[in-house]
Each structure stands twice: as C-alpha cells, then as structure tokens.
C-alpha cells in the first residue's frame, strides 16, 4: 500500500516539474540576445559660443531607429532624449547648445555651457541591435560672424567615442539579471554565462 502514495507523489512532482519548467528559452539561454551595443561620448565641456553636433549614419540596408540620450554630469537619468528614424544610407544630425551654468575651474568661477555626455542606442521595444548598422560621430562646432555679417565655420573638433556593450548578468531589476557596461569589448569579450 505505501507504494501508491509514493508513486502518486513522484508522478505529481514530475508533472509539476514538467509543467513549471520553461522550455529552452533563446532569450535567457545566453546573454547575447540581451546585449545592447551602444556608442557613448565622454563628458564634453564646450566653451561659450560652441555647440555640439551629433551625427548618426545608417550604413545598413534597412531603416534604423535610434535614440540619442543626453546626460548631465550629476544624474544617471537623461536630461532629454531624441529619437530618429534613419532611412538606409542616410545621416541625421542634431545640434545641442547646453544651457550656461557656473563652472568652477581651480577656484575660478566662470559661466560656461553645461558639460554633457551622450549615448547613441536603441529605442526601447524596437531593435536592440541598431548600433550594429549605425556609425556615430560627434563634433564641437562654432560659427563666427565677421563685421559684415558673413558667417564662417571654425574647423570642427572631433570628439572620440567609445563603443560599449550593455550586458546583463545575474539579477536584473524586475527581470532577474544584472546589467553592467562593458566599454572595452575588444579587451574584455563577452563570455557565455556559466550555469
């Protein structure tokens, strides 16, 4: 008689385990599908009269949906973002003139445009791999007017950019994984998660 309850419990446990188990899930099986390539700028301090020119070229065969997020130095939440839909082969540009703030330079206080950094990345819910087909470029520009009202453009200053992977590991908030940045994927390539 004790065989029957034992068998019942074993079968029940088997059914429960079978029903509860997720099939091999391509999203969770490895982190690669969750990796988000992004291009980021360092924090840029421009001088008065200069502006920042952000450019993104879609070198892919299909359209690209891109989000430019701009951050101040004291906040992890973007000050603002701008979305772009870029047709194949096209380039979009965005000019940003940061608002003036007090800047302390070694004890000297001056009014200067606010320092900002930015990320070129995907628009959530669209295509996390968009940066694989986008070449980004950031330049510091200044247009000057001569006495006769003619505007001339100073030679642009090209800002160096970093290519990072936003890689989940471990425990993500609300999902069950941990996000971390890998801004040197060439040096520290993504390794499969050991399970």
């Amino acid at each position, binding site marked *: 008689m004790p065989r*029957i*309850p034992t*068998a*019942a*419990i074993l*079968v*029940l446990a088997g*059914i429960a385990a079978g029903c509860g188990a*997720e099939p091999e*899930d391509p*999203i*969770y099986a490895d982190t690669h*599908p*969750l990796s*988000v390539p*992004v291009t980021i700028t360092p924090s840029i301090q421009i001088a008065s009269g200069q502006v920042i020119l952000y450019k993104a070229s879609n070198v892919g065969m299909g359209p690209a949906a891109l989000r430019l*997020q701009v951050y101040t130095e004291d*906040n*992890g*939440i*973007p000050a603002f973002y701008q979305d772009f839909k870029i047709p194949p082969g096209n380039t979009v540009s965005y000019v940003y003139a940061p608002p003036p703030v007090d800047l302390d330079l070694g004890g000297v206080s001056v009014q200067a445009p606010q320092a900002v950094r930015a*990320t070129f*990345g*995907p628009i*959530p*819910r669209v295509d*996390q791999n968009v940066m694989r087909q986008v070449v980004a470029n950031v330049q510091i520009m200044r247009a000057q007017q001569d006495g006769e009202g003619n505007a001339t453009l100073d030679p642009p200053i090209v800002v160096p950019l970093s290519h990072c992977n*936003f890689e*989940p590991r471990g425990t*993500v*908030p*609300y*999902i069950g*994984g941990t*996000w971390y940045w890998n801004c040197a994927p060439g040096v520290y390539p993504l390794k499969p998660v050991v399970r």
Partner: protein
Amino acid sequence: MKFFRLLGTTLGGLVLLAAVLLGAAATFGFNPGTLHPGLWLTGEVATEKVTDWDWARKARGLTGIQTRDHIVPFMAFSINGSRFIYKGKMYLGSGYPTGAVMPEKRHWNKNIVADPRVRVRIDGKLYDGKLTYLTDEALHDEICRQYGSNLWMPGFYIHLWEFEHTPSES
C-alpha cells in the same frame, strides 16, 4: 488488469491530492516569494475605496499582485512586483529587456492582458481593482524619471499599468 487498477488509483489519488492542495491554497492562501510565484494572496481585504496612493510610497515590502489565470480561469496566479506612485496614482510595472516583447515570458502579464482584474497586496492588506495599460509615453517618462536610472538602461522598457481600486466589485 492490475496495472490499470494501479494507474486508476494513482490518477485518482493525484486528482484528489491536487484538489486538496488547491483547496488549502484557496482557503489559507499561498503568497509568492522572491523567487517563486504564488496562488491566492493572504491578508485583510480593504473595503474603503483608496483614491490617493501617496501613502504607499512608504509602505513596507514589495507589491503582491494576484491575477486570474488565463489558462485555468478559476485559478489565481500571483507574483511580487513593483509599484510606482506618481501624483497620487499607483502604477504596477513589469520590466522587459530588449528582445522580449510584452507579454512574452511573463505569465502574470499574459493574465492581465486577458483579464485586467487583480488583487494587490501592500503591507499585508489586499486591494481589489483593475489595471489599465499606460499608453501615454510622456506620462510614462515622467514616472520613470522619479524612479532612478535603472529604468533608463539601454533598450530596457518597463511597461506600466494604472491600478484603480474598485472595492465594491470584489
């Protein structure tokens, strides 16, 4: 013949066991944990309508969310989730990494898409109501700005539902 008798007894026993376990869970409750879902939530049901949820900012613990199972309608399915309070309203959120489309991979999301009636547990009290998906992107951003940089990670998107307390319908 003996085999079929054993099979019948086993299946009957399983059905009985499942019924007893479900009955116990429905009667006494089975709350979700941090790593496992639950069934029916336990707690005292609030009968007075709540219209301002600001107090819930300081309430302890996660938010228990009990949904109606979309596969087995009489079954409850609950999880511990996160609440977002903004301008007196309460929103429940479900974050998705890039590459995952709501409600994929989330049983409770599939449930609320099929039936938005839920029971919410905050600080041991239960609130019956319904959820409405937040489609206003500007409002979505405003709420996310209140809750830190985690919600602004590249490609990450948290889906939000506004909770309306409807105690009379409980």
